[in-house]
């Protein structure tokens, strides 16, 4: 059978060579394509200790174990998140500069601020992973017991009821106006007093101290005040009730529009991320958000962990952005600067 062992050998050598070449070609292309091959920077556009920082750093713990390269978490705060967001927008969309996207940087600021140096369309989303229900609350000893009481009071004496926020163009700024508008106050900008304060903690304290009448903010920021019977919740904006908040949901009150009014965190990137990078992150996010410790820490802080796919995230953000933009246009709330 073996008439020509030389030919066979040649064939074998050739075959092996082809195989080796193929493998090496594969290895080369693999080395080029295999993301990540160097450390990834995760920018947090807010200062240490804030809600975004804690959320992002908590996620970075399981992510750091999953991602084969180091994940560097850096805070780049300033101008309500604009400084950090701009630095990410200007980075190359190669998956090595990512950011913790947040309701403030991605929907509220672009909807409200006319002079914002970036646009929502300049970013891409690999996954929204956290939803923060919004709750409205007044001081415990207030005679306002429900949203209807609040609205009746505003209508009875315009420009006497005030609400606090963590600054112009914050979620709290838009939330207070949007909530009472849904309940029939036609022009909240004219009929309410908006008192901006430095940060969410100061905003909640202002209601406690009587500086402002009510506040609408992330339920986690109010949880301890509600548990301590210092503040009384009037409503939560989610479909499901929020544990610890004995208040009707927006669904109970028949205001489904308010379901859009929630805080959220996700992982974002500059526009133009390669598809394989998005795919990698989709897998990583899935694994990281099912981490037991992460789930426990975040849930205890009052967050709802719910991972959206990149497509769902983009749709969710776009919808919220459009809703906020419309509200801002209707009410003339745009910050012209």
């Amino acid at each position, binding site marked *: 059978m073996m008439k020509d062992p030389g030919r066979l050998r040649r064939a074998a050598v050739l075959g092996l060579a082809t195989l080796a070449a193929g493998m090496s070609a594969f290895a080369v292309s693999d080395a080029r394509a295999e993301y990540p091959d160097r450390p990834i920077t995760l*920018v947090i556009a807010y*200062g*240490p*200790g*804030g809600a975004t*920082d*804690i959320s992002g*750093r*908590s996620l970075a*713990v399981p992510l750091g174990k999953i991602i084969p390269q180091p994940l560097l978490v*850096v*805070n*780049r*705060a*300033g*101008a*309500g998140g*604009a*400084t950090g967001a*701009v*630095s990410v927008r200007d980075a190359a969309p190669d998956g090595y500069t990512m950011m913790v996207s947040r309701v403030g940087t991605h929907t509220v600021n672009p909807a409200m*601020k006319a*002079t914002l*140096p*970036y646009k929502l369309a300049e970013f891409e989303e690999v996954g929204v992973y956290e939803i923060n229900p919004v709750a409205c609350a007044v001081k415990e000893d207030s005679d306002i017991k429900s949203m209807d009481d609040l609205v009746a009071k505003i209508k009875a004496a315009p*420009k006497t009821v*005030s609400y606090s926020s963590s*600054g*112009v*163009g914050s979620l709290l700024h838009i939330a207070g106006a949007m909530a009472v508008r849904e309940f029939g106050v036609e022009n909240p900008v004219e009929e309410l*007093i*908006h*008192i*901006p*304060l*430095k*940060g969410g*903690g*100061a905003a*909640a*304290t*202002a209601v*406690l*101290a*009587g*500086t402002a009448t009510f506040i609408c903010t992330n339920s986690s920021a109010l*949880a*301890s*005040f509600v*548990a*301590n*019977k*210092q503040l009384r919740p009037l409503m939560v904006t989610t479909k499901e009730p929020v544990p610890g908040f004995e208040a009707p949901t927006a669904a109970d009150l028949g205001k489904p529009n308010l379901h859009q009014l929630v805080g959220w965190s996700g992982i974002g990137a500059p526009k133009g991320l390669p598809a394989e990078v998005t795919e990698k992150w989709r897998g990583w996010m899935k694994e990281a958000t099912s981490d037991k*410790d992460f789930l426990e*820490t975040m849930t*205890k*802080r*009052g967050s709802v962990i719910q991972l959206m796919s990149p497509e769902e995230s983009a749709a969710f953000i776009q919808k919220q952005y459009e809703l906020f933009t419309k509200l801002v246009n209707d009410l003339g709330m745009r*910050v012209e*600067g």
Partner: protein
Amino acid sequence: MNVFDDLAAAWPLVANLESFLALAGGITIGVIAGAIPGMSATMAVALTLPFTFAMQPITGILLLLGVYKGGIFGGSIPAILIKTPGTPASSATILDGYPMAEKGQAGKALDMALYASCTADMISNLSLIMFAGWLASFALSFGPPEFFTLILFSLTIIAGVSGDSLIKGLLAAVFGLLLATVGLDLVYGTNRFTFNDANLMGGLNFIAVLIGLFAIPEILAYVWRPRSDKGQIRALGEQHVTFAEYRRCFRTIIRGSFIGVFLGSIPGIGAAPAAFLSYSEARRRSPNKKNFGKGELEGVAASESGNNGVAGATLIPLLALGVPGDVITAIIIGAFMVHGLQPGPMMFVANANIIYALFMGLIISSVLLFFIGGVAIRMFRYIVDVPKSVLMPAVLILCVFGVYAVNNNVFDVIVMFLMGWLGYFMLRNDIPAAPFLIAFILGPLLEDNFRQAMLMSNGAADILFRSWITWFFWGATFLTIAALVRTGLRQRSEAAEALRATTSE
């Protein structure tokens, strides 16, 4: 259960190895982080937070409190040795600490910083334990109008830290106010001096300004005249604070501690204004008034007791109301919540043992701070021995890294160098830097609170007189200004008389 039952129930929570290790470890981390310029106590606490999730609640919280307290003290070490405040809270310590180091008394200044810090820390902790409820309800009666008058009064500090010339002090304060307006304004989000630059929209970073203003001018001055200090080797400064000196400063330390407690219990002010207020009060009342700013031991005692007095007191609104007084306590609230604890009045009922365990832990922390701080001083003291030709470049590198680390932004480093040149210009013209800094800190607070008060009242000015607190601070402000004017007039007439006496001869 009465207090003693609570104490008995809480003791086992604290009296274990983990709690002591957590406190000692926390203080050590804090002192080291505080001593590195640009690495603030806030950052150290934020970076330690994730490690506490896996610990027992009390151990984790004690670790964070240790970092906080260590950080506030640690900041005074570079402030004294290299004129670079390690944390914003220690900027007032520079005023007398660095001149003392220049005179070869670094050891003494550091010792006094430690003694004042520990004494104030203890007083602050005891105030927390005894007056938490009372001070908390007082703090809640501070709305924007009350804040406005308090800040207005605090601005009179400028006169106390202006040195010889009030006019130059006011000039520096105006510079400070002007630069503090850069960025987005709070009430309408207006861009001020931002030139459409995203970096400028965030305003000038406080730490970059601080380091630029104090540390960089020293380096520039040295580069300009590198041989000016040749032959003049700064002594290691083995001198210690004697008991007599401690007793002489004791009144100042107590006063500073209570200023710290008072300002610390009001959310939103922080440790740096407390240190400056304590300093200017000490100067106003001291027989050695002339020596302040030139290396007066009492000045170091005043500022260090002022800033450490804040440390325990910021826990008053935190524990009694669930309100974070500053960024650090906001992070610590996060640590409570991760462990399912809700700080606030109910916690005294529901988790009284944890509250009392924290109290005991805090008392222990003051003692531990004394020993760990002592070791740190002994280690860091040798920095004064390093020749300036080696020290200055090292400080420069440290400053650049530190300022970059705050926000991971090169822009802040540029701000630091520009501020450095401004500081150098001021140094050469004997314009004091401290009023600049005070205006930079307090100016935005004054504006924000004024505008918030006006929003509350729809523009009616009578809201600025709505409570006895506002009347108190209006009165205090006018009295201080009247006293300043009177002293100024007397000095002028004395000078005129002296002139007349010499010309008539």
